């Protein structure tokens, strides 16, 4: 005698993206805080020292925000025109910024007025940065030049005129006081050495370079321009390593996660993508409301700050461990230790005869009813109780009843309350494509059974009307989807015009083969 086989609950594949370590990590941020700036946010830079304030360059101001403040802690407003590239020095004391009016200003973070003004560029300065020995400043400008300045004297040390277009990005080496890299709209990246008068390495990106990033080890450099993100190996003399094309608009900003394992790129297509730096695959994706111009990650990835063209600064803070734990629902209280181990810690003596206890099989409530062929009760218990939250369980029970040919009997003979409960479940889950094949016939049956009593209960009538509405909507959706599919088909068909030719050629060879076989078959036939 075989035992009763419980109803099999199918495991449906999880919809949407797969849950990976990365998605768990990058989803663990709170809802973003949005701050409206005066204009497009072009640059965000974190202070290297605690408490890690960050400077946001937007329009003619630079705002400094504290790690958790939503109001600027400080603002620098003494710009005549649009400010660019506000960056901290490595000790967090000084801040440098370029400006549309070609003047580079150096601020003390505690003061308001510029400490130094470096004049010499003839056009807007988009790139400014401190060198690693802290007393020099490197700038790049729309006049195709990049210059090195001495802070104490406010004098120009050197000028490099190698680029042939606007210099829009650049970064200094953190390990070597003399090295810096610039990216320009002439499609090239150039590595300069302050000890010589010209660039040491030139790399051709192929697109106007929008952003440059150095790895912490400084062996690799990442450049963004056009739709491409490219990685170059400096130790091999600027050999291209990878070219990534994951955005469909210009990539504007790059950033590395705190442990250097993930690379983030922001683009005008309103996405921020996270790459794994070992295989350069996209592991996560953030969507934003507007084109993203600037991107920064706080130390330890505590927050993601994104500046957009519409002047909105979006700040996402990481959830604290308590908050993230709240998501996983509370665990049931277990029986106390004493009850739990009762009799289990008894050690059998040598001559003891062990009587094995038969393993008791536990059946869920609906299975118990199904075992006894109590079909209506089985359906009731599947609709209520703990399986209420899991539609797949209820659907599996309905399917099982259908298999037994008794679904109609189980659905019939219900009062207003039970029927409305059933209808509620069906309207809730019918449009789910996983459940539709089971629930649509069930809904049909309900309509057949209860046709005669329609109009007697306002509750049921309302639900039936809602069901009708829902179905109409669903039909419209399907119609639209089919339309889109048709459009796509024509597009694909037009993009692969050669397909037709291939087919005919293959059929021609087929005909040839047939001819051959037929001709060879004759003598053989006679032979056999």
């Amino acid at each position: 005698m075989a035992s009763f086989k419980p109803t099999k609950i199918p495991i449906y594949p999880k919809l949407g993206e797969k849950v990976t370590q990365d998605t768990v990590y990058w989803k663990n941020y709170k809802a973003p805080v949005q701050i409206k700036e005066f204009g497009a946010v072009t640059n965000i830079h974190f202070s290297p020292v605690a408490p890690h304030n960050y400077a946001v360059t937007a329009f003619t101001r630079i705002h400094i925000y504290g790690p958790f403040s939503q109001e600027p802690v400080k603002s620098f407003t003494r710009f005549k025109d649009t400010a660019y590239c506000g960056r901290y020095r490595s000790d967090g004391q000084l801040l440098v910024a370029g400006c549309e009016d070609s003047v580079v200003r150096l601020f003390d973070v505690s003061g308001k007025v510029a400490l130094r003004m470096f004049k010499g560029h003839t056009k807007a300065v988009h790139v400014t940065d401190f060198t690693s020995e802290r007393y020099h400043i490197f700038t790049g400008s729309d006049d195709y030049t990049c210059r090195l300045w001495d802070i104490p004297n406010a004098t120009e040390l050197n000028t490099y005129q190698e680029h042939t277009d606007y210099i829009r990005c650049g970064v200094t080496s953190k390990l070597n006081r003399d090295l810096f890299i610039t990216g320009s709209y002439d499609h090239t990246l150039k590595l300069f050495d302050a000890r010589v008068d010209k660039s040491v390495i030139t790399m051709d990106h192929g697109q106007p370079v929008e952003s440059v990033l150095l790895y912490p080890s400084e062996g690799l450099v990442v450049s963004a321009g056009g739709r491409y993100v490219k990685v170059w190996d400096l130790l091999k003399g600027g050999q291209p390593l990878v070219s990534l094309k994951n955005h469909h608009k210009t990539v504007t900003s790059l950033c590395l996660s705190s442990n250097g394992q993930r690379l983030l790129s922001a683009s005008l297509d309103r996405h921020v993508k996270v790459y794994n730096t070992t295989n350069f695959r996209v592991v996560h994706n953030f969507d934003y409301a507007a084109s993203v111009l600037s991107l920064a990650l706080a130390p330890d990835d505590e927050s993601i700050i994104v500046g957009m063209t519409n002047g909105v600064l979006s700040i996402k803070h990481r959830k604290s461990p308590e908050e993230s734990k709240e998501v996983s629902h509370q665990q049931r209280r277990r029986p106390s230790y004493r009850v739990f181990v009762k009799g289990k810690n008894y050690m059998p003596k040598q001559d003891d005869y062990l009587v094995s206890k038969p393993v008791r099989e536990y059946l869920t409530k609906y299975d118990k009813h199904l075992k006894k062929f109590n079909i209506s009760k089985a359906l009731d218990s599947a609709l209520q109780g703990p399986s209420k939250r899991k539609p797949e369980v209820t659907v599996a029970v309905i399917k099982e009843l259908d298999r037994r040919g008794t679904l109609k009997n189980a659905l019939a003979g219900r009062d207003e309350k039970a029927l409305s409960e059933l209808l509620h479940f069906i309207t809730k889950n019918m449009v789910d494509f996983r459940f539709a094949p089971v629930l649509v016939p069930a809904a049909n049956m309900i309509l057949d059974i209860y046709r005669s009593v329609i109009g007697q209960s306002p509750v049921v009538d309302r639900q039936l009307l809602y069901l009708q509405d829902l179905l109409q909507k669903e039909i419209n959706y399907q119609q639209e989807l089919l339309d889109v599919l048709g459009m796509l088909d024509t597009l694909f068909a037009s993009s692969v015009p050669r397909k037709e030719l291939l087919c005919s050629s293959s059929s021609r060879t087929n005909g040839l083969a047939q001819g051959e076989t037929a001709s060879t078959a004759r003598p053989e036939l006679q032979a056999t």
Partner: protein
Amino acid sequence: MVEHGDIRVVHRGGIARYCRFLCERGIFCCCRFLLCGSGYEVKVFSTSTEECIHDLRAHTDLVTGVLLRPSNHLQAYSCSTDGTVRLWDYTDGILIKTYVIGYPIYSIYTSANHSGVLFVVTPTSDKRSEFQLVAVHLPQSGDQLVEAREFSAVLSDVSSNPAATSFGRGGEYIASAKGLQLEVYFFKKQKPYRFFLKEDNKKGGKNTFTCLACHPKDDCIATGHEDGKIRLWRNFNHKKEYTYTTLHWHHSAVSSLCFTPEGTNLLSGGIESVLVQWRYNQESQRDFLPRLGAAITHIAVSPDGALFCTSHSDNKITIIRSSIQVSAVIQGLVKGDSVRTDLMVDPRSKALVLNGKPGHLQFYSLQRDKLLYNLDIVQQEYIHQSGLEQFEVVKAAFDAYGNWLATVEERKQKPTELELNLKLWAFDEQTQSFMLNTTISAPHEARITAMCFCHSTDSQTTVLVSVSKDGHFKAWQLAPATHTEDEGPSWSCDFVGAYHSLVPECCCFSADGSLLAVSFQEVVTVWSPASWELLTTLSQPPGAIRNLCFGQLTCSKYLLGTTDKNLLCCWNLLTCSLEWSTSMDVSLLLSDPFSENMAAFCCQAGCTDLFVFKPSEPRPLFSHKAVCLGKVTRAVFAPREKMLESCEETSQWLNHSQLYFVTQYMDLLTFTTKAEEDRLMASSKQLVISDSVAMTPFSVLLGKRSQQEGQEAASSLLAERTQLPQGSAAVRELLQTPAHVLPSTSFLCSMFVESLLISVTDNRKKGRTIYNYFIVAQQHFMSKIE
């Protein structure tokens, strides 16, 4: 059975043997033995070990009934449609007597009150469809073969169903039911009473009688009906004042009823496969034994009432204790309506695999002729109800090593709704069985017509190809584990192929797995599984391809196909041209994976011919006309455990493997050579002898002792036979010594008892003591004579 040289076709695995098994009544002889008719023989089973102890073979047609002889419970009658009743000593398996009746017999009854009379159901001489109950007076004669001539008709127009007639209390009356009529014949009054039921009652239930049983101590007849009701008839010795009470639990026809010997309980069973025990006179109290596996066809109770047995429609007998607990199951090859999966051989266990119980695959050991286990594929509670569409396993395939099993199950409720599931099972070394790895629901939009694994032995990954009526074939591959850590590797679709929107029919991998051939109606397409490129197309119009098969080993360059326009073609894949073709109506073509041979079954005029050939030469190696009646539906080459060393040309093809095939009548047949058969017979005889010793405490004691002795005297020739208690040396000497030289019994007694004890002394010493005893005894005797 057709003789052909020394190769002959034999029934195997008992589909043929067992399939009739279920229509017979199993009967108990005592608690120890169970008799049942099975095909042309009667089988005697042990109720404790479930082993078949004897095959009582003498009938030349189907055995229709088995019955204990009321005057001697160690003998049993069996009747058959060959027109004879045979009397057997079933404990020793000896045929005692044969009574020739001359008419086909459909059932047999007897009662202790009617000694020397047998009641048999035979067709009336003029009409074959009408049956009568005839009393046969058995002539008293010492001969083995006796012709019975004294007949007297008792009842005319009875049912041929053995369950529809029964003797009443002490043999005073006999009751028989047919259609809507119950007839009771009283032997004293020599008068039948007839009772009629209306055709349908108000609710539309059918009142037709299906079976009946008479209470052994009381005047009560229980009848089962088509609508599941049981009626208990009383007071039926009056024409008008009869009464009946109705019991209703079964939802469909009651197929068997049986009272326990004391009459305290009534057992009933039907298609629900639930054994119901009703208390007599307290019918509201019922006990159930649910989920017995298949519809109950017959119930029997042992004479002491301690055991029940139910025979089931799936070739199974369940032995149940009177406490309603299953104690043993005797299971033959599970018989279904048809083998929907192909016949397969499990590469690991070398077992034959085919459809078993509904929703299961059965693994049947061909070497031991025994069901190994059933693998539950569908994993759903089977609802025993007629007319219900259930999931059925329709396709199955093993990979080369038996590591993977792929199954397809389908359920067709309405023509538009087809539920399909493709399941992949991984062999688990620890549990030694298949574990479900992946379930793919709706792998195709229409029915899957063929499925095969890539059989190459060297490739790391396995590919499964399924071919469906929806015009596509799909390749499935084991995908590595996804980056989430909770799951192992699972199967996913690798490639979907189609050709000119034609419907594919069959698929086949070449022996090395480098080529896949898929037939699309008239065209055979050859694909490369490595790149999924269409390499070439072959066709030989007219006629769609029916079978497709690659050659094996040295003939692996050949691809063979059969068309439904009676053509067998052989293509050479190196030249992509037709090598040879011949006109044959091949219904089934298969290749032997262990040799180059191919087998083709041709169906002609209701008979099937077999041709065995090599693809390299179109001359058959072996041909056999009229292998069996009807079409051969499935066939398989099973590897042999031991290779045969036959060098005759006609039987050489049987050296590596054995060909098993199933006909449309669900007979499993195979080819054997003469030498092999002789060996088999010898081994089966030996088995019977060693099994027949009953396990009593005495035999345990003696067996132990004799075993020890056997170990001691390992060199002696008698070692093999010392299993029996007579083997003891002392006892043997006792028996062999002439009676007049024996000492007195009191003197011998101690010696005899001593010989039963487990000896601790060594053999030689004991031998000497016995010898001394004899000398003493002889001297004693001599002195007496003097």
